[in-house]
């Protein structure tokens, strides 16, 4: 059987017999995990935590519960738990970025979907960055986890429930509450809808 034909679940199952097979999981998802971690904890820590995520996943692979084709929610769940160990540094980082962004709008923009996007929209988004940074830093850790897994790692609510081992209803409620908190912190005149004006 060609490795590419195997789902993550199958590869992880096979790695119980042939540990080296787990390398395929790394090859498939390491960059996604690294990018998620880099956004959350910065470059320096992200590299170290990425290694830790996969080492832990490898050692816990017998406890992996097949829930679908992709192991991404599982891996990001491990990553998120590791991030929580560095919660304070993450919050400091978010606040530092928020401060750095004030006045210079120097934040790097990443348009949704990877397209270049409309420059005005991107600048609007950048203008809100300081507020967002502060708002994210102020969120309770679990709510921040839920929101960022959704917004930055693109997990569905069901996948977040798997990642964080939470009931789907709790995830839904967390995300609703978190969005409301963020919206309330945005300036009254700000339109948090850069996409809708395209």
């Amino acid at each position, binding site marked *: 059987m060609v490795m590419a034909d195997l*789902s993550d*679940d*199958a590869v*992880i*199952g*096979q790695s*119980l*017999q042939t*540990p*080296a097979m*787990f*390398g395929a999981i*790394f090859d498939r998802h390491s*960059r996604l995990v*690294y*990018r998620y971690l880099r956004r959350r904890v*910065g*470059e320096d820590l992200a*590299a170290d935590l*990425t*290694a830790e995520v*996969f*080492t*832990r996943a*490898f*050692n*816990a*692979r*017998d406890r992996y519960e*097949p829930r*679908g*084709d992709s192991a991404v929610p599982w891996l990001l769940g491990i990553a*998120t738990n590791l991030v929580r*160990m560095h919660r304070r540094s993450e919050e400091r980082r*978010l606040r530092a970025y*928020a401060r750095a962004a004030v006045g210079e709008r120097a*934040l*790097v*923009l*990443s348009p949704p979907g990877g397209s270049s996007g409309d420059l005005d929209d991107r600048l609007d*988004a950048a203008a*809100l*960055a300081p507020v*967002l940074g502060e708002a*994210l830093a102020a969120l309770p850790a*679990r709510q921040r986890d839920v*929101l*960022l897994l959704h*917004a930055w790692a693109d*997990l*569905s*609510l069901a*996948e977040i429930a798997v990642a964080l081992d939470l*009931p789907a209803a709790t995830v839904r409620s967390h995300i609703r509450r978190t*969005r409301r908190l*963020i*919206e309330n912190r945005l300036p009254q005149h700000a339109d*948090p*809808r*850069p996409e809708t004006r395209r």
Partner: protein
Amino acid sequence: MSTAEETHPVDELIRAVRLVPSADATEDAAVDAARRRLEAAMTAPGRAPAVQGRRRRRWRAPAGTVAVAISCGVTLLVAGIAVIALGGHRRPSADATLRGPAPGAGANALIAKLAVLRREQTAADQLPAKLHITTLPLRPAPAIIPSLSRLVATPPGARIYLVVTEPARGGDVLWSPSLGDQLNIVAITDSGATTEGFGYPAADMRDPRNVYLAGLQRPSAGGASVAQRLVDTYRVAIVPDGVARVRFMFAGRARAAIPPVTVRVANNVAITKITPASIGPVRTIWYAADGHIVPTSTAARTRAIAIMNAPRRRDALEAARRSHVTATPAILHAFAVFDSDSRSGIHVGDGYVISHPTLPELPLSVLPGGLGQRQQLDLRDVRKVVSPSGQTLYIVPGMNTICLFVMERGATGGGASGGCAGSLASALRGGAGESSSGTAIQGSMVYAVVPRTTRNYKLQTGHHAFRIIHPVDGIVIAHTPFQFG
């Protein structure tokens, strides 16, 4: 992966503003470094997963320290090695091999314990001649003895056969071939035929953990939900004669206790449907027809694991004896637990018993091959702490750290998990700690060893709630309703 109804302008805004500079140039280097570390873990000896039912644990830094996130693989899960080795059939094909015209003496013990094997084989009992069996997790399929297959259940969507297989051979198998042939389950569903791959001999017939997953569909593309994938999937408990009913008890997932299910035995098996909620570990209790509980035993497996691990243990002990690592005196002085030097153990407050075990008394999990080599630990100065409830910890000093191992309760192979302080400074400041991830229903367990200067230990009991406890001899074994992530 997101669906349209799950998107929200706030999410889009957060996506649009990346609060971190792009740095693709460094990504390759970071990923390469991570890959090297994973490869080291994959090739390290003794890195084996745990047995089913082991409770998940995650590292938790003790207050004020940066605990090194030594992976769960620090856990030298010996029992897991055994289970994995069980699948160590050397045949390369994934097709079931139907061989041997008649059962040999190897099957006699199984036949004596299972009425279903003593009845005549009917045409329905016979497996299809050309059968491609996927062994789960994907392993070479065992050699099935054709005359000893029995159709034992036909739940919706599946035909479940009890089969007898030849014992796996080789130097790394759990069950000695001398124990005879082994039991297994083959499930045939619309999506194919599967076995779970964990056969066991008659000697292990009374182990209540022998519950098979039957008919697990192989994941496929197309976005099918978990419920859809599990549509023809069952748990099958094989029980000896005399067991009339089996009670399945499921490990509850967070905030969702799953009620136990009691199933009547037919053809020496009890089966229950798997649902997405009940996919986790399961325990069983066996009942006789008169309602009495049928005694079960895990002794055979425990013995087999010990025998299988004996060479590994010998090597680990030898490596430990050769080691000249000595714990730094600062560590030994900072932690009260090292004040106790009794080989047989002394009782201290809170009912703990602290002892100073010799090298041969250390469990395999604590010996080199796991954490010891990496952290330069002094295995001659280990302290063993046993709580009144029987929970066992090992506190291991090192040149630059202190580590804490929590032995898995009920694990047959001496599995353990634990953590080490990240540096000498953090060891002296906060010690080492560990917590179970826990559930919202059951809460979590917290384990820590803290320096004698720590008179008050802050135990987290809620998201923003803590309780102060006063550790005896620096040992913390505490339950909290808080669910550590």
